[in-house]
């Protein structure tokens, strides 16, 4: 690595495919367009229209829906005059009561804490970026969001609810509650939020704000 030409190349003039390390010339990508790596095909840039506005709106919607989704019963089981309701937290408690501490902690993280943290981080980030307001820990917030992204598992929890309904349907009467409808909305908001997020634009804005 002693070549002089190596140090003379300016890294800022290039894109590098994070998946296959192909060196590409940097160019402008218009809104609503995507750039794919010509060698391995992975998406390099996916430029979204109004990405920051969208993620802010969806973070607010998610925050509003988070509370009914967690406080109201998701399912209610009725049979022979007995009834039993379930919330996300009561399913965590059921695992705790079965002496499965680790699994309980995992479900608590994946279905409650991480989804909430993702919403709060996105709310903070998109508000600051929209207002062009330099704020502390922006880079930290974006980094944490990207790290937490795949560990929020609400949509899998939802599939779990569907499987449970089918399992119970001929044994007892299962009725969906307000919690289930709110949870559906919350999942739609989080999924849309991750598709509308344009990480490159976010990182560029963060860089501009931190330089001030």
């Amino acid at each position, binding site marked *: 690595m002693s070549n002089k030409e190596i140090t003379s190349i300016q890294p800022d003039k290039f894109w590098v495919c994070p998946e296959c390390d192909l060196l590409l010339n940097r160019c402008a990508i218009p809104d609503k367009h995507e750039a794919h790596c010509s060698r391995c095909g992975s998406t390099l840039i996916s430029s979204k229209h109004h990405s920051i506005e969208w993620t802010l709106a969806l973070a607010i919607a998610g925050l509003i829906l988070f509370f009914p989704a967690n406080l109201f019963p998701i399912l209610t089981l009725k049979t022979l005059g007995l009834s039993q309701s379930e919330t996300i937290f009561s399913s965590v408690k059921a695992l705790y009561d079965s002496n499965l501490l680790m699994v309980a902690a995992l479900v608590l993280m994946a279905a409650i804490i991480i989804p909430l943290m993702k919403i709060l981080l996105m709310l903070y980030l998109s508000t600051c970026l929209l207002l062009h307001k330099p704020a502390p820990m922006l880079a930290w917030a974006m980094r944490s969001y990207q790290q937490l992204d795949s560990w929020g598992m609400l949509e899998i929890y939802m599939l*779990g609810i569907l499987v449970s309904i089918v399992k119970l349907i001929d044994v007892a009467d299962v009725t969906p509650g307000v919690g289930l409808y709110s949870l559906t909305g919350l999942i739609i908001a989080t999924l849309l939020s991750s598709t509308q997020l344009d990480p490159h634009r976010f990182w560029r804005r963060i860089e501009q704000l931190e330089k001030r």
Partner: protein
Amino acid sequence: MQHSALTQGIIICHRCAKTAGIQQDGETCPRCGTRLHRRKLHSVAYTWALLLASMIMLIPANILPIMTFKALGKGDPATIMQGVLQLVDHGLLGIALVVLTASIIIPLLKIIGLIILLLTVQLGWTTNMRQKMLMYHFVEWIGRWSMLDIFVVAILGAIVQLGSLASVTGNTGATAFAVSVILTMLAANCFDTRLIWDKHLEKIGYADHVGR
């Protein structure tokens, strides 16, 4: 042009994809604060370690019961496979297939996929590169869906609490299964797809001075 960025003296941040000169290797990224490396550190060793650990955990996960369903005081603890067979007995073929896919087929496919990718790097099986990338993306995306069974145990455990009439409790197999799923997710995260391309370029004689 088949140049890999590394041979041109450019590296990128794993987290925010900012490009940097090779002289910044080991320093922190000026934009997001993540430590910069040419390739993910000890990628092959970490991926193997996590993958082997998850394969080991998969044994108790399938042998030990994950859930006990008791109706009128009767009912034995059931393993994942017994749970699927019970669903088939009740004529719920569709849902049996969903659970079978999420809890047995996907974990196996993930393990096989990661082994193929690791051997690609180590033994230089550098054919069908695009398919290998697709395989990696599939393994990375599908991993979290195996958590389905854990959520089903949690939800049923919370809702089927009707005293002596019917009750569901989780068993230790659930811990082993959850740990196994988490370990494969971490293994997929540790794998660096660029290593496959390095090997590919090495084979076709491009990368004369890839520094490791």
